[in-house]
């Protein structure tokens, strides 16, 4: 319950021209940081997969090379999860950027069709992880 959200919910008449979605920087920063960490973890898992594969194919593991190849495959599959999650966050950051630009643009022209409310629901659904609200916006 920040003050910005209070103002948005209450529809305060004091509206600044070109204002952005409330708490945008924190939300985008959270998604960006989370996406960067998840991508790093995914690349780390992929790197581990490459290490296993290289160790298995180079012959230093002797007769256990096939096990290392299987481990490499397993780690490659495992790395897909953080990579997918990170990719999703980065996509969300890009979406937030477009939403912010639209929000600012509508706010400058006085929001003649009352579209900011729709953007507000979509923004709130994104923060609350509400798929229905997000899909409705897109």
């Amino acid at each position, binding site marked *: 319950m920040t003050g910005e*959200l209070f103002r948005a919910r*209450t*529809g305060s008449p004091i509206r600044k021209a070109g204002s952005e979605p409330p708490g945008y920087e*924190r939300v985008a920063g959270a998604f960006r940081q989370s996406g960067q960490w998840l991508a790093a973890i995914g690349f780390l898992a992929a790197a581990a997969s490459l290490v296993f594969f290289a160790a298995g194919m180079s012959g230093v593991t002797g007769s*256990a090379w096939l096990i290392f190849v299987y481990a490499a495959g397993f*780690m490659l599959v*495992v790395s897909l999860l953080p990579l997918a999650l990170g990719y999703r966050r980065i996509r969300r950051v890009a979406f937030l950027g477009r939403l912010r630009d639209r929000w600012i643009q509508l706010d400058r022209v006085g929001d003649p069709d009352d579209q900011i409310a729709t953007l507000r629901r979509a923004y709130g659904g994104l923060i609350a992880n509400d798929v229905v609200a997000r899909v409705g916006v897109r």
Partner: protein
Amino acid sequence: MREALAPAPDIAGLVARERRITIIVALVVVALVAAAGGFAWNTMLALDHAQERIEVADAAATAARRDAEAARLGASSAMAELQAGRARFAEGVATVNRAKSDLLRATSSLESVKSALLRTRSVVAVRTLERDKARAEARELTASLATANERIATLQGAYATATLRAFGGMGRATIADIWIGRLRADVAYADTRLEEAQAMVAALKDHIGLTVALSEHLHPVGSADAEKLADSSDRLGRLLSRVLDMRAQNIRYSGANKPSEGFNSPGFTGYVLGRVARGKTLTSLPETDTPQLGDIIRYQNGFDMFLLQDAEGEPFVIGMTPVGIAALEPDFGVPRAGALATGIFQQ
């Protein structure tokens, strides 16, 4: 109004949720990496350990194969030794069988010696029969001589008749001459036959005389005498035994001086002397005036006889005579010519 209905975004919850997700995902990924790495590493170690155990097992199997080969070689050697042992056993059995056959042959030889001894004992009787047969032949030759004399007388009468008839006519002279020639040839043939018959009669008379003379002085000798003689001197016993063995072999009188053909009297004495006293010959013996047992007495008819004595202590001489090996009394009617000292009795 719609702004008033919009939910208030929970940014702090978003941030916390994103952090939780990130941390959970990181932990899960790290745990999976560690688990996969540990599993692969442990598997590699287990495989290496299994490989080492396989190599050890291979080495043990190789050693076991070597042991098996060695055992097979040992078994083969044992089988070969068993075969060799069986062959040696078979050879031993064959040797025992040969010894048995030798024993049988020795037994049969002993029987042959016994039978020869029996034949030797009958030699005296055989000699007596030969003497009687020679006397009958002498009587027959005497009758033949009388017949020849009668024929000579007849032929002489015929010759006289033919001579008288020659005076009867010239025509019959040629016939008479032929008859005379034939008769002369018959007379010459008859004279030759007469001379041959006379020579044969003389030889037979000599042989008969010798046989009769020797048979009158025969001295019976046997193996018991040899055994008794061996008590006083082993060499004298062996001398008499050897002479008796040769008499049993019926060795004849011959000038060949070979055991297979026969001996004359000096040859026989020298042969026996060489067998009993190695290295001695008749020519190497000194003469003696007092012959002892085992010495050789020489007679003027050419006999060389060993002087011995029987079991009762009676002396006799034994050697080869024209009628065979005979044991005679020392003075069998022929003067002695000397004696040779063999030294057998002293040795």
